Every structure is written in C-alpha cells, then in structure tokens.
C-alpha cells in the first residue's frame, strides 16, 4: 500500500474533554479529488471534451473502485447536464447526419458512411489521437481556458460523456451490489441528466440513471419515475434484464408517491413491467404496492391479470401490515357487480391473511 496521511477527527464534549481518533486518507483519494476538479473544469470549459471519454472508460473498467467514486461521478454528471443546458437550441443536433459530422470532426482519417454509423464512437480507433487532440488543454502555462483551440463542442460530446460517466459511477452501484446509500444531492436542475439518459437507445444507460435514484435512497420528485418510464415504454416492448431489475427495485421504493401523483400511469407501468413477485426484494412489500394500486381510482379495472395473479400466492408477512379501509369494500362491491369472481376471490383471500386482522378497520 502507498503512503497514507493522518488527519484527525476529534470529538469534544464540554463535560468530559477531548479525544482524538486517527483518521487515514490515502493518496489515491487525493489524486481522485484533484483529477475530479480538473475534469469538471474541462467539462465547463467545453474544449477538447472527447478525450475525457477515455478517462471515464477507465473509471468504468475499474472494478474494485472506491465507494466514494459514485458520488464524485454524479457531480460530473451534474456538471455535464449544466453544460448541456447552456447550449443553444441550434447546437443540439438530432439528425444522423449531424452525428456523423461530429464523429468526422474527431479526426477520423476517413469519412464514415451513414451505413457504418453507430451511436457510440469507436473508442479503439480514436485512442491514438488523444495526445495530439488535447495539447491545447495543457500547453498554456496560465490556464487551459485561454488557449485558442477551436472548440468542437456539441450536444453529442456531452451526451457521450454523460453516458460514460453514468456507466463509471453507477454500473456497479445498482441492485445487487451491497453499497451504502449515499447522498447524491438530486435537485431539479439535474433533470437534464434524466432527459439525456432516457433519450438513449441503450437500456443500460437508462438503468445507470435509474441507479442514481436507487443509490440516493430513492429520492426523486414524485411522478418522475412514471413519467420517464411511460415515455420510454411508448416505443418499446420490453426492457433489458438489468433495466427491468433496476426499475423494479426503484418502484419498490417510491411507488406510493407515484400512485398518488399519477395512478393510472403507474398501474399501466406495473402492467408493462410484468414483475415476477419472486424476483423482487421483498414480495410482501410488492403485494402491498399492488393492493394500493387496486385501491386507486382506476386500479381495479386497469391492473393486469398478471398482477392480479401475483396476489393469488402465498407471500411473506413482512411489510404487509395494512389497515382494512372503506375503499377495500368498494373494490369488493365493484368486483361483485362486474361478476369478476376470480379477482374477487383473490381479493377476499388476500384479506384472510392474518396480519390484516391485527389492524383495526380504518373508517
């Protein structure tokens, strides 16, 4: 191991005096901190952005990364999103031709054809041009902002950077990875991150951005999750395995606010996700989610048979402490009126679970 620096943390209380705990900070963290500052300067500056992808790919390949990298990378994402917000409307190309021109600008020796175009630029072939491409960043002894390098800054530079950043920070931070919740500082000004990530064709990129919610303990404005996923599902039949996993994990945490804000869309999303109860973290909690969905104004009619069947199975009792509310009677009545005997049976059986008897009926 390399050298470590001792810094001190002292706890003092006025009655018993001072004691000190030795605290160690290793050099790798210091390097990372300095590098992060410089990297964000370059992002803000907007010059010679494309070599940064190689740096971010390095972080993404770092399997045993320090736990703190995730929150640091999220700051890079925020910086990128703010830089995107500064771009004018004309600087955000949407056509394939514009994307092609962007790639050609990256010192490609031979022009690419549209047929050969892929949304991600070929990293291997550009790697050898990194040095020649960013001399202007460091040759100026005063500041890299004063150089006269003509910027080749487009939305796509940032889009690619954001994708790689999310990969570096959150590819290993999702469900199944035992990491403590961290404070990422989601704020409304970070919407751009989600806008960009959800516009991606790559489900893994979307899964990465969903993991920002999960890593942060599920803190997100109510309605965000459903809004973004409903939009995404418009053009897709299914998600990748990891995105399915991440989205299920996320909705497990924030379903209540989503149901309150947009019940119908949430129910539709639940239908589209086709979650297998056996695959969720806590199936008792998932059943509770479905109960609340059915109780919602449109839930009884709209919830799919798949989700109804999920209720018709033994579940663990954990988290299923729900009061019997008047709305439950209304659900029963409506099922009876609709002569939907199968679902009524499920509903009645569900309320025979002992835990429901423990709580008094809510009036």
């Amino acid at each position, binding site marked *: 191991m390399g050298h470590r620096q001792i810094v001190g943390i002292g706890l003092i209380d006025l009655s018993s005096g001072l004691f000190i705990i030795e605290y160690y900070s290793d050099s790798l963290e210091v390097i990372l901190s300095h590098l992060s500052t410089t990297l964000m300067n370059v992002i803000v500056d907007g010059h010679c952005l494309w070599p940064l992808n190689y740096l971010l790919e390095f972080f993404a390949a770092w399997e045993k990364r320090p*736990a703190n990298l995730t929150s640091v990378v999220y700051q890079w994402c925020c910086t990128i999103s703010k830089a995107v917000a500064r771009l004018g409307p004309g600087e955000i190309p949407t056509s394939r031709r514009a994307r092609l021109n962007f790639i050609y600008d990256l010192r490609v020796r031979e022009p690419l054809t549209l047929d050969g175009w892929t949304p991600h630029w070929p990293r291997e072939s550009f790697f050898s041009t990194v*040095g020649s491409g960013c001399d202007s960043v460091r040759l100026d002894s005063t500041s890299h902002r004063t150089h006269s390098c003509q910027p080749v800054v487009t939305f796509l530079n940032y889009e690619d950077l954001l994708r790689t950043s999310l990969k570096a920070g959150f590819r290993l931070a999702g469900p199944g990875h035992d990491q403590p919740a961290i404070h990422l500082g989601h704020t409304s000004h970070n919407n751009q991150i989600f806008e960009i990530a959800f516009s991606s064709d790559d489900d893994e990129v979307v899964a990465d951005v969903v993991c920002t919610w999960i890593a942060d303990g599920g803190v997100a404005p109510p309605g965000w999750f459903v809004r973004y996923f409903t939009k995404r599902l418009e053009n897709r039949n299914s998600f990748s395995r990891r995105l399915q996993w991440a989205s299920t994990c996320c909705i497990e945490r924030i379903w209540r606010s989503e149901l309150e804000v947009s019940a119908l869309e949430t129910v539709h999303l639940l239908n589209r996700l086709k979650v297998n109860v056996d695959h969720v973290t806590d199936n008792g909690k998932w059943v509770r989610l479905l109960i609340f969905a059915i109780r919602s104004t449109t839930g009884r009619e709209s919830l799919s048979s798949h989700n109804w069947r999920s209720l018709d199975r033994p579940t663990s009792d954990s988290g299923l402490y729900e009061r019997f509310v008047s709305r439950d009677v209304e659900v029963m009545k409506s099922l009876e009126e609709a002569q939907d005997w199968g679902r009524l049976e499920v509903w009645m059986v569900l309320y025979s679970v002992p835990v429901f008897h423990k709580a008094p009926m809510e009036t």
Partner: protein
Amino acid sequence: MASRNGRSGSSSKSSPSCSRSLSFSSPVVCHDICGQSTPLSHSSSHPLPSSASSSISGSWLLGHPRTSVRFKHQLRRVSGVSETVQQPENCWRVSPNNVILLVYTAGRNTPRFLTSLYSPSVASLIYDAWMDAWRGLLFASRRAYDIIRHPSSLKILLSHVVSGFRDMTGHQVIILLLRTDRAIGHTKQRLVQVIRRFRRTLLLPITTADVHNASCIPLNGPGLRLPVRNLEILRERNADNARCVCWVLWTITDPEAIDSAIRLAGTIRWFNDTSDRNPPYEAIVSTFESCFDATKQLYPDMRDLAYFSGRAILQINTGAKLKSRDHASRYPIPAVSSNRYEHTDPDLHHIIRMLECNSGPDRPTIDFPTGGTNTPAHSLRMSNLFVDLTRVGQNPALKSYESYLSAATTDHQAIIANTLVMWYMFLGGHVEDETFWATDKS
C-alpha cells in the same frame, strides 16, 4: 488568527435589518440567516481545538449571502421537521452536555472530507461549508448553520449544526458543532463507531453550483502534492546511485557489476538537481545492442540484460526530454523494430515496443502494458515512466486501448494511481515536484 480574505468574525459589520440581538445566559451561537456576520461577545480568533470552550462561547457567525440562500433552501427541504422546534430558527443555546464538537483537519493539499456521517442534510452542509473554504471565501471566518433532522442511524436529534473554519498551522480545520437533544455519553460512542465505519465513505465533494461561472474552481491553487516518505533520503540515494552507476559503467569490467549497474540505471531519476551528471548512455546502449545478433535475434540467456538495459535507455531518454529537447537529442533511442519479438517475453517485448515508438523526434508515445500479460512490477515501472512522459511538453499519444483498460480491470492500485496522475496532467493539472519521487503513488 488573520483572515486570508480580510474578513473575520470580529471585523465583520452587523446588519441591523438582518441580525438578531441575542441575550443568553450561556454561550451563544447566532446564525444570521441574511448572511451578515454579527459578532457577539468574543474575538473570533481562538485557535481550535485547544481552546474549544472559549470558541464555543464566542460568536459563531455566518458570512456569505449566497450560502445563506442555499441554506434557506436546505431549510425548506426539511421544513416539515423544523416547525416542531420551539426555538428561534436562527439561534440556539449552547450548554454543557449537549454539544459535540467535531473537528476535521487536513493538509491544504489533501482535500479530503468525511461526509454522510449523519444524514444527507448534514452532508450537504458539510459540502457547502467545505466549498466555501475551498474557494477561499471563509478562511478564518465563521459560519453557522441550523439544521433540523432526525438521523435515524444515530437515534439522536441533531437540531443544530454550526460550522467554522480555521487556518491553523498549515491545516484547514473545519469545526462542526452538533447539538443533540439527548445525553451525550451514548451518542459519543455511537459517533466514534460511525466515524470508523464511514471513514472511507465519501471523497471531498466538488460543487457544481456555479458551473456557469467559468472561474468557479480555482485553477491557480496548489498542485497535486502527495506525501513521499523519506524524500530527502530518496534524493540522496538517487544521487548516490547515479554516481555509482556512472563509476561502474565507466571503469568496471566485471559482468555482474555491469549487470547490477544497468538494473539500477533504469530506476534513477536522471538530470534533476540531485543527479545532474551525464549518464553512461553509450555503455548502456551498446550493452542493449550486444544482446542481439546481426539478424536482431536475442541471444540465449540475454533476456534480462536486454530488458534492463532497454528500460534504462527509456528512463534516461525520458529524463533528458524533461530537461529540454536539445538535451534529449544527446540521448537518442536506438532504432529497433518490435515485430520480430512478438513471441518473446511480454515485458521485454513491451520495452522494445516503447523504444520503437519513442525513437523518433515525434511526440512521446505511451504504449500501455497489458494487465494480464505483463508482470505487475513491469507495469508499475512503466506507468511511472508514463507520468514522466506526460510531463514532457507535448501530450504523448496513447496506444493500446485494451491494455490501457486492463490496468483498471486488474485493480493494481499503484498503476491506477499513476494512470490517474497522468490524466490529471493531460487535463492541465499541476503536480508538485516531490510527487514524482514516489513510484507508487497510491
């Protein structure tokens, strides 16, 4: 203690419209939500933590309007809880047994901070506070924050947080006063446990609040400085080794001595202030060339000598390039082709590739060794050489993308550290000279 920016708690002017007049029987901490500092009874220049009590009894005041705006936002986020507190929202009473003083110190060049100790809200406050210090706004001035939060992990009510900054004998000190609503004894133990558990939780957060302002992060601050143990001894040893290698290669004919000297030559930092002597370059080059026959085939049993002499050539050439381009022209890398050595030892093959691509006058080239194929010792030496190559005027060109990524995959901390330092310089970061003396920078 003098303030770096000319602002200190005792010199700040109060604003009648914003500050509150407080009268407490016990020491008082005042938070001026409008962003004006309001000195109460004490001078603000008590060093901490040795005079913690007097500091607490002094005025812990706020400073910066922008941060106050941020803080208001912070308060709004936890407004549901704040309404339950029966106190003026911007001041609080300090008394024994309900204050914890948390002191964090770090060297100026070691921006390391511990957050997420208690709750996201506390972490945010620390974050904001640190950034103010980082920008040089609040050295030696004082700040106070209020926070109302229930950190479930600690089972205590952190009803208020006060933070201050000191510049104390070359160390930044950030002081957090946390008021708890319960007895402190048990809480103290819990805090110790939490600190130990979270000691590597978070790196210093870097703000993005002002990315529209291009100068938000100071560029002219101190460069990256990593501590190098026994630096003076390293310098002396480097000078001794340089003398020794020169003497052996110029005067001794014993093959074993020459072999040892060549091994050593590849580890010396040539052409710096401690070893400003001309290396026996011709002897090393001729040794390297003598390892191959006329058809450029490696002689049997000459692998080690070829490897170490090749490495010494690279080391000397890179050192010369760091001094000047003219100086480097005196130590040209011999022309060599790596094609015929593809099936030889991976480390030697890599050395020959490096010699081949750096033999011309073009920009330096970094050809990354492969993590799974090349030995860790070789990869570490090379990554250290890459750091030096990056210091040479122009940025070097990079080669071998897959090999480059393999360093991260194999998780060799020292190689990763060197690669990150290389990138730091790529992006315009400044590294203090002593940092380069550590081969292992992790």
